[in-house]
């Protein structure tokens, strides 16, 4: 990013203005289409400003992890497709993409959104595995939230096949049912730029931020996961502000998600 643009962003923020005209705590428009990949068990495309993500859900029988035979498996991934931005490289994911995937996964996992105890085909032998794979098609900052919304919307609209444990292992039954869910996690990401806290940073803001924090809240309005990032720090007061923004923003975003999946 050139210094001119960076300085312009920071100057505007001194006047509590943002480069794209938003208020400090304002999110960009969120557009959600569900069931965009009909052959997957669930899917959603999310556009958060000009960031665009598709999440597809695959549900299939799996061996349980050795120490948790009484629970199903949930794995959420994220991948920046090379067509999403000129700097993306093919090959194994770098540390930023690994962090993205793990933060999105943890936000959903720690909210206990999916009741994994209901995903057991046979205890210690066979469980249901739910894979939520996010692919980023176009990048304009704040993928943490975009991927989280895509995964959450895809989970909420997924249709799960049923299996019974028979002689030859899990056997597919007729019928589909929704995934058992308990809450709707909402990820909110704030950046600190030139001393100001802004919500939902776009790619220009992402490039010049000092630090960031992603806070996931559940339907009860509690915090269930968070991750600080970036080369600078926050004061405790700033973190308190971020917590408030997260809780205040998440209600409306949760309504947007609910509306999208009920269409």
């Amino acid at each position, binding site marked *: 990013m050139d210094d001119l643009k960076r300085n312009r962003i920071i100057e505007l923020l001194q006047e509590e203005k943002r480069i794209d005209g938003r208020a400090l705590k304002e999110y960009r428009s969120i557009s959600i289409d569900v069931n965009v*990949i*009909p*052959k*997957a068990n669930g*899917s959603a495309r999310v556009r958060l400003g*000009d960031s*665009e993500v*598709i999440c*597809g*859900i*695959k549900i*299939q029988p799996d061996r349980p992890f050795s120490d948790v035979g009484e629970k199903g498996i949930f794995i959420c*991934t994220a*991948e920046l*497709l*090379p*067509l*999403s*931005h*000129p700097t993306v490289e*093919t090959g194994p994911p770098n540390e930023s993409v690994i962090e993205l995937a793990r933060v999105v996964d943890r936000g959903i996992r720690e909210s206990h959104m999916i009741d994994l105890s209901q995903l057991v085909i046979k205890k210690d032998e066979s469980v249901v595995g739910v*894979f939520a*794979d996010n*692919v980023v*098609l*176009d*990048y*304009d900052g704040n993928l943490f939230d975009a991927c989280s919304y895509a995964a959450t919307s895809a989970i909420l609209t997924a249709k799960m096949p049923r299996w019974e444990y028979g002689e030859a292992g899990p056997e597919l039954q007729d019928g589909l049912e929704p995934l058992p869910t308990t809450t709707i996690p909402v990820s909110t990401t704030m950046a600190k730029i030139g001393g100001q806290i802004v919500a939902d940073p776009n790619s220009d803001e992402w490039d010049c931020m000092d630090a960031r924090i992603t806070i996931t809240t559940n339907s009860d309005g509690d915090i269930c996961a968070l991750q600080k990032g970036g080369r600078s720090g926050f004061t405790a007061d700033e973190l308190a502000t971020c917590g408030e923004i997260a809780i205040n923003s998440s209600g409306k975003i949760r309504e947007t998600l609910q509306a999208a999946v009920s269409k």
Partner: protein
Amino acid sequence: MGGRDTDMVLLDENGIRCDGRKVDEPRRIMIKAGVLKNANGSAYIEFGDNKILAGVYGPRDVHPKHMSNADTGILRCRYHMVPFSVAERKNPAPSRREIEISKVIREALEPAVMLEKFPRTAVDVYMEILQADGGTRCAALDAAAVALADAGIPMRDMVSACAAGKVADTIILDVNNEEDQAGQADMPIAYMPNLNQITLLQLDGVMSLEEYNKCIEVGIQGCKTVYALQKKALAEKYFPEEQT
């Protein structure tokens, strides 16, 4: 070709295929150019139930430098299936199949792209299979060629692709997934419609020399149908007022 025993009737007594098409009828094809914001050029195609996105970057610098060519630009292609695109979740690492298809697609596009105008640079074509339904390589190629044009890369000709094949001893156009699994042969073809050159040709399955020539002929007709849709997609983006 699997040539598996199956109860499925691939071609009924009226010459109608398992999905209701006639022997020379392609699946529903929808192409849209310019669908991505960051990519220099892009296109989205729905070809039957295939859903594929192509994005192009370039001409741009090559890293590491020794991969570049002082005499010409280079074309790099990646055909990639996203994890949820197929029935069983796909491992993210590139498979040998994906690597081979990336190569044959690149060789199908190279004759059409005027790479010699951009020495030392690379043009990158990324094809993402979002949902697969048989014939992904042809559909990906169709989207990639439109994305190249959308990126303003100078081209000698469009490249249009469609498969021909054989089911129930009959040569058909545009093999779908069921026909690929249970039929007798699948022959993906890519074609430069103005230069009259076949730039991709593969075959799995058994046919006579006569059927082989017929298959190529049928495939070329399919490519011409695709070509019209590719031109339409570009026109819709660049001359929207002329489209009604």
